[in-house]
């Protein structure tokens, strides 16, 4: 169910490499667990984020969850569409529901993230 060409974190973010930057979102498992998402709070463009540290929030009708930076680097884009249409995270988590783009300090850091198989194995045996 999780695209094979993406990398993942234990905190349920996905990462797609695209040249010198990476696009980041939350997984289908995460959006399903959260329920209807009503607000997404993202870091500003230019913000420095640190791998494993919270850098935003996804809030649903019933709960709130931190978004963790999957890699350290600089935020170069944020999905502004989510300000008005946060439900895109539910309907299309790997596409239009993307959250931000980061230029990693160390391009190789993406290789240290999980592949789809390891991510899914972690879901089955928490």
């Amino acid at each position, binding site marked *: 169910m999780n695209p094979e060409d993406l990398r993942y974190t234990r905190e349920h973010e996905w990462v797609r490499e695209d040249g010198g930057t990476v696009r980041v979102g939350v997984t289908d498992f995460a959006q399903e667990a959260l*329920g*209807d998402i*009503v607000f997404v709070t993202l870091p500003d463009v230019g913000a420095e984020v640190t791998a494993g540290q919270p850098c935003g929030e996804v809030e*649903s*009708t*019933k709960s*709130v969850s931190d978004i963790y930076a999957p890699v350290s680097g600089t935020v170069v884009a944020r999905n502004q569409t989510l300000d008005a249409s946060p439900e895109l995270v*539910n309907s299309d988590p790997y596409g239009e529901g993307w959250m931000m783009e980061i230029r990693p300090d160390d391009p190789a850091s993406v290789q240290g993230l999980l592949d789809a198989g390891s991510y899914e194995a972690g879901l089955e045996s928490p």
Partner: protein
Amino acid sequence: MTDLRRSPLHEQHLSLGAKMADFGGWEMPIEYAGGGVMKEHAAVRDSVGIFDVSHLGKATVRGAGAGEFVNTAFSNDLDRIGPGQAQYTLCCDEGTGGVVDDLIAYVIGADDVFLVPNAANTAEVVRRLAAAAPSGVEVSDQHEAYGVLAVQGSASDAVLQSVGLPTGHEYMSFVEAQWRGAPVIVCRTGYTGERGYELLPPWDRTAELWQALLEEGEPQGLRPCGLGARDTLRTEMGYPLHGQDLSLEITPVQARCGWAVGWNKPRFWGREALIAEKEAGPKRLLWGLEALDRGIPRSHMTVTSDGRAVGEVTSGTFSPTLRKGIALALLDRDVAQGVEVDVDVRGRTSRFRVVKPPFVRPSTKAS
């Protein structure tokens, strides 16, 4: 997790892809696959939704003088209603006036009262009643004798008619109907703020009725709704939830439930404490909070005014209708309607206006 009790519709919920959670010791649906809180909430506000609330308690008080006895125990004045009518009432603690439970009392007759308490409080309400009952009055826990289905929304009449159940009786009244040979109590009650009905079929016929309603109600857009939407719907109405906005620590005077207290009655549990509190003026009152920014308040968050703590959020959520955060909060008595206060939302300050609920206009009594 301890062993959770299950509704007679457990298999139906699983087959509809429901997310299940613990509600007062019962494993119940929060939301359904293909639905979700927002869609399910909108179905009830716009057309019609159906909820399984079979976890709610059921108890009977029967015998000579049963109605009179209930009226000396619970807060509301049962003499205001007659057979075929129901009433919202409170079971308060005799010593403190704190709320043991809020419940609905159905008057079948002078010697027969049917009660629907909250799931988690049923055993305690039954225990207190049984201990106080005079000889000849029997209190009986009937938790698994009936299921409870709530059909709520403007199209609820059409849905009930499609399976041959009676409709159109007055708000807070009920009719005992026959459905495929089974007795079903049809009450014009609910917890959503919309016109609607609550149905009490026998426990083992509940699945059959649920299935028939879902099938026949399809043309009306009837959607199964979980307890997640039930919570956002009731919060928009400012209806208190026991355990959050009402509790042994929160009296009806503080929670503005004085309308459900028969102040002129000579006796009911907690009377002395509540009259004393009413005369002295409560130290805190239940208010509504409406977000002025993107903050979503949650239970137990602290409310401040100019940096000074003035209260606590008791229930908070995102209002699907208003598309902003709303809350019920117990605030010090010097906080006035219309002023702005702050809520500490996980370390960030969010701004709210103090308002009097409901947040959305109810249409429970609409014809």
